[in-house]
């Protein structure tokens, strides 16, 4: 038997979903005000995804904008039975891969860029902000292929099948990249823990 709290949650979710469908329909009709609402709701997640995948603030901002512009242009093709957020998420991954042609992404392993990204991502509210910063910096310092897979699978919880499809790579490659990413992160964080001040 469902708890009262669960019922309330479900009603809330259903209301939000209906509201979102209304916004999508209105935006597809040409309302940029409705699209702005959609942007406000989904931008933080899109931006976080872009930032982690690219490791560069300026590139992530460009990717975020590109993703929403592409979403706007293709609203007519979006089928409302799936979630807008999932759809934009996929567009964002594509935007990252397109941006990957530019040079900024290949600088993802430079120390100064890692620090910049880590500062942005570090959440002062966590128990150990220093540790979270180190992890974000370590992720930003991963080689691009490993970083993409780690972000999609490790942070955003995609399956290997989903991640490999989003990235356009073979599932085997996806698994190998994740393996590699974990090993590199482990080594990097292990180095930090053995005592030097990362400051």
């Amino acid at each position, binding site marked *: 038997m469902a708890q009262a709290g669960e019922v309330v949650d479900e009603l809330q979710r259903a209301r939000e979903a209906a509201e979102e469908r209304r916004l999508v329909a209105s935006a597809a009709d040409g309302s*940029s005000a409705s*699209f*702005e609402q959609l*942007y*406000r709701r989904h*931008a*933080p*997640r899109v*931006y*976080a*995804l872009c*930032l982690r995948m690219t490791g560069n*603030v300026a590139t*992530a*901002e460009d990717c*975020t*904008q*590109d993703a*929403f*512009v*592409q979403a*706007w*242009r*293709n609203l007519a*093709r979006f089928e409302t039975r799936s979630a807008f957020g999932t759809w934009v998420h*996929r*567009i964002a991954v*594509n935007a990252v891969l*397109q941006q990957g042609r530019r040079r900024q992404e290949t600088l993802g392993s430079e120390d100064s860029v890692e620090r910049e990204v880590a500062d*942005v*991502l570090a*959440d002062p509210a*966590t128990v150990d902000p220093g*540790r*979270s910063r180190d*992890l*974000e910096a370590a992720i930003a310092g991963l080689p691009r292929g490993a970083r993409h897979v*780690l972000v999609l699978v*490790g*942070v*955003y*919880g995609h399956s290997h099948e989903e991640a490999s*499809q989003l990235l356009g790579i073979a599932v085997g490659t996806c698994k190998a990249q994740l*393996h*590699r990413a*974990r*090993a*590199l*992160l*482990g*080594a990097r*964080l*292990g180095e930090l823990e053995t005592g030097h001040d990362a400051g």
Partner: protein
Amino acid sequence: MTQDERAPQGAVARIDSQLRELPREIEPGRDLWPGIAARIDERAAPAPASEPRRSAWFWQAAAAVALVAASSLLTATLLDRDRPAGQAVVTAAPSNPVATSQDAVGMPAAFGPAGTLDPEYLAARKQLTQMLDQRIATLPPSARAKLEFNLGEMRRAADEINAALAAQPGDPLLEELLLKTYQDELAVLSNVSQLTGSLENAAASPAEKRMQL
């Protein structure tokens, strides 16, 4: 970088749980909406038919905007590629039956046997090519002839791929190559625009330069 790719189990579990705890949403450091709004509203401004000669910088910027618009529209056509084979990638507009119709500049407007390209992409591309026609006319005749020949090569490539798609609708390799051909055409037009734009700045005499401003 470690030689041994295998991290010990406990460390892996720890990393995984730390990863899952990372925030999945971050507010951008600045409001990105104005940049987006500017780009989605850009087509609201009508393209002027004839107007006083603008500076080379203006044409370059306008061409770049049209290029980005056309390019992202092109890429967007393949975003929902996981449709079952045989289904058109691009929804056919109801008023447009099966077609390999050619637009004014010659590239086929089809994307496969049952689909036509996004009309917005075609319009943006038309705007770009019209802006560039003036530029291309300033090239020396031999260079112009080579350019036109090569644009023709790309058109023939698109025709060949469309014909193959008629027999193999939805073939991912063919679709990817077709998309590449359309993108490459835009890139060639854009590159030539930049080349000739730089030359305009170089060759202008002072009197001409005053007019440009």
